[in-house]
């Protein structure tokens, strides 16, 4: 049995109105992958922030190699060999990939930053995680998945003894997850202790050794990673959860959303599809396939060069979010922090963002009405919060995502575009969201769901559109299709274009 390298005892942390950690114990051995499991808001991220020095516990202690340590800053933890990937991105968008990878510790020569060496190192790291970007590219333009890979590479750069990863796979597609797992296994075999947080239960058996389950800020169980899914869920939620992808009667009404020949040069070309009333249409593809760009263009968030978008028979003017909304379109963006939320505003304020216009009479907003609608939505989604006025930036990641979805629920959109809707959402809540999608479609609304989670796409959609390199490369009926079918389409086209 290998020794415990990092140990936490009785950690407590309270925020105004919330006890985030309420006496958590954790023991981490060298050469193991230790999975942290828990519902949204259970305290996982808070725990790792305490372990990485980003946050100070109110009580309890942390031991490293059996000696108590005092982590005052993130730098302290790094010096002790603890490297962390946080749930929220910690990249500097204006700086290049190479600089982000060396953030805080660039190679120096005669006191000056050695740019050449820095890029050299960056190239090595990028190759290791398999990301094909130039080290001199600014991070700002990269898609969210590649940003996550950069975060991973950055954490690897430290050569740490303890590697903590907060939901690294939430935004990755199968290929990248596989690559990440290969890296993690290699590190584990080299004796690195890994803390791994995920809401994808199937990943636990694949990569984990032991699991610590957190519930309401307490560590309630420690079990081996091969514990059955149902048992894990029961430990985590405290009650059984229904079918993961609830069954639904397929219905096809008239087309609500029609997209034809949508093109933006340099991004995507000739994208045509329709989504009918009562349908869930999935959109799959590799990272960077252009799915996000297409749906943003459809919603009017970005301009496009050619093509048209029609909602319920009316053609939308390009680049006009407001018109899209009026026509009944809604978009849950993939980047919740950057595009979905007003971080320092309260939960109620955020939930009412879209409906504010409708709750306005003679210029005055009926805030009471918005508030009661928000309260209802929060209840329906089970948002864990101290109150409707809690700033959303202090909600747990999963609960933030619920707020973003909630604002469109309140708005009663007819065609809802969900871009990675269940990213970072726990199993229980996922089912709730799926049920919600089903409710919407049962009422005759339509849903277009972009997701990198293939089981989810397969389990929830009626039809699946597959994108590669900015083009729609195929369409599958979900019934009977397998993950391999989808991947074959997505990958084939990429290889084809490389051959050009």
């Amino acid at each position, binding site marked *: 049995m290998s020794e415990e390298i990092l140990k936490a005892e009785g950690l407590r942390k*309270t925020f*105004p*109105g*919330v*006890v985030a950690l309420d006496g958590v114990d954790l023991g981490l051995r060298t050469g193991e992958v230790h999975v942290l499991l828990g519902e949204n808001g259970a305290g996982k991220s808070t725990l790792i922030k305490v372990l990485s020095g980003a946050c100070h516990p109110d009580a309890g202690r942390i031991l490293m190699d059996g000696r108590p340590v005092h982590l005052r800053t993130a730098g302290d933890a790094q010096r002790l060999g603890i490297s962390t990937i946080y749930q929220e991105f910690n990249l500097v968008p204006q700086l290049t990939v190479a600089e982000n990878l060396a953030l805080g510790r660039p190679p120096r020569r005669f006191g000056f930053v050695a740019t050449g060496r820095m890029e050299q190192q960056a190239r090595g790291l990028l190759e290791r995680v398999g990301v094909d970007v130039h080290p001199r590219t600014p991070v700002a333009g990269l898609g969210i998945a590649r940003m996550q890979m950069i975060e991973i590479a950055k954490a690897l750069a430290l050569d740490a003894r303890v590697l903590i990863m907060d939901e690294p796979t939430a935004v990755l597609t199968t290929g990248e997850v596989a690559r990440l797992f290969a890296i993690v296994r290699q590190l584990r075999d080299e004796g690195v202790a890994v803390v791994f947080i995920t809401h994808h239960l199937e990943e636990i058996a694949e990569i984990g050794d032991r699991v610590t389950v957190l519930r309401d800020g307490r560590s309630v169980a420690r079990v081996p990673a091969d514990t059955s899914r149902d048992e894990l869920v029961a430990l985590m939620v405290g009650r059984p959860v229904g079918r993961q992808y609830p069954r639904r009667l397929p219905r096809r009404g008239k087309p609500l959303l029609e997209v034809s020949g949508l093109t933006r040069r340099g991004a995507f070309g000739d994208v045509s599809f329709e989504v009918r009333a009562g349908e869930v249409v999935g959109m799959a593809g590799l990272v960077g396939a252009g799915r996000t760009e297409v749906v943003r263009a459809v*919603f009017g*968030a970005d301009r496009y060069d050619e093509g048209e978008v029609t909602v319920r028979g009316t053609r939308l003017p390009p680049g006009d*979010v*407001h018109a899209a*909304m009026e026509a009944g379109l809604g*978009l849950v*963006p993939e980047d919740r922090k*950057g*595009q*979905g*939320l*007003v*971080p*320092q*505003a309260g939960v109620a*304020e955020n939930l009412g*963002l*879209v409906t*504010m*216009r409708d709750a*306005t009479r003679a*210029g*005055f*907003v009926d*805030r009471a009405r918005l508030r009661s609608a928000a309260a209802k939505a929060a209840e329906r989604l089970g948002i864990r919060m*101290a*109150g409707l*006025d*809690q700033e959303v930036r202090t909600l747990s990641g999963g609960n933030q995502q619920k707020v973003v979805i909630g*604002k469109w629920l309140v708005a009663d959109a007819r065609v809802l575009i969900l871009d990675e809707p269940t990213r970072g959402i726990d199993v229980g809540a996922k089912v709730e969201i799926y049920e919600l999608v089903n409710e919407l479609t049962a009422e005759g609304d339509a849903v277009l769901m972009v997701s990198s989670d293939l089981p989810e796409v397969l389990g929830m959609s009626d039809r699946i559109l597959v994108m590669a390199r900015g083009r729609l490369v195929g369409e599958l009926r979900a019934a009977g299709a397998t993950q391999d079918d989808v991947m074959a389409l997505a990958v084939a086209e990429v290889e084809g274009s490389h051959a050009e």
Partner: protein
Amino acid sequence: MPSDALPGRRSPAAAWFAENGALAALVVLVVALSLLSPDFLSVTNLLNVGVQAAVTAILAFGQTFVIVTGGIDLSVGSVAALSAIVLAWTATVAGLPWPPATLLSLLVGVACGLVNAVLIAYGRLPPFIATLAMLGIARGLALVISQGSPIPMPEAVSHLGDTAGGVLPVPVIVMVVMGVIAAVMLNRTYAGRAMYAIGGNEEAARLSGIKVGRQKLITYALSGGFAAVAGIVLASRLASAQPQAAAGYELDAIAAVVIGGASLSGGKGRALGTFVGALILAVLRNGLNLLSVSAFWQQVVIGVVIALAVLVDTLRRRGTT
């Protein structure tokens, strides 16, 4: 139980006080000055402070809208001067009756704001640059129209500088009215709520269907309109419109907003805080006069007190969390 510590569960008075940290600083300042100067705590003097705060406060109310959206308006002082000059010129020189002249003057203020907003929202200029340009343009136009000399204000409008009923100075009334308008706009109207959303996260606001460009037009137009009112009040107090009036007031107005708890990165700010901020500045200047602090030292003392006032606030806030 954790819920005891919830923000909304504290006593309303305590919560209100905690959210208006500048108020604590104002109270300390007032107490200190009443101890140091026997003349400070008289009704007359406090009304004087009110009058002296009025112009800055009105400018700052307008500025609050802009700062809440994450912008900045450096042109308010110049726009105030231009609006007053336009009023005085059209009424006194061109001979227009005062009501249309006043209307025109307000429109000029609003127009300046709209130009700022167009440059910012559609020309993508940083607000600092757009309004810095307007600072020069409006001041220049004020000088051009007036040929550099003061112009008498029409009698009727000048009453805005008087005292109503022999006790309550009209500038104070105007200040309070504008403050209430600003507070109601910010808290209750669509435009106001949209300002917070835009300042908090412009992209999220846009993707939630808020017409960011149009809301910015409203925001800067309001700032321009408030500046025009401030300019008219200022000119009324002097019974003449000065082309160089309110020069440099933009820094005072912004300082009042920030002292009042707003953040220059947007999404935060309240009319009441701004009011307190403007009062702090006015009380400070008034107190220094009463205490006969030497001219050279006054700037030092003002600087130190401003820093302390905000420091008290931030340190207290840190203590709570």
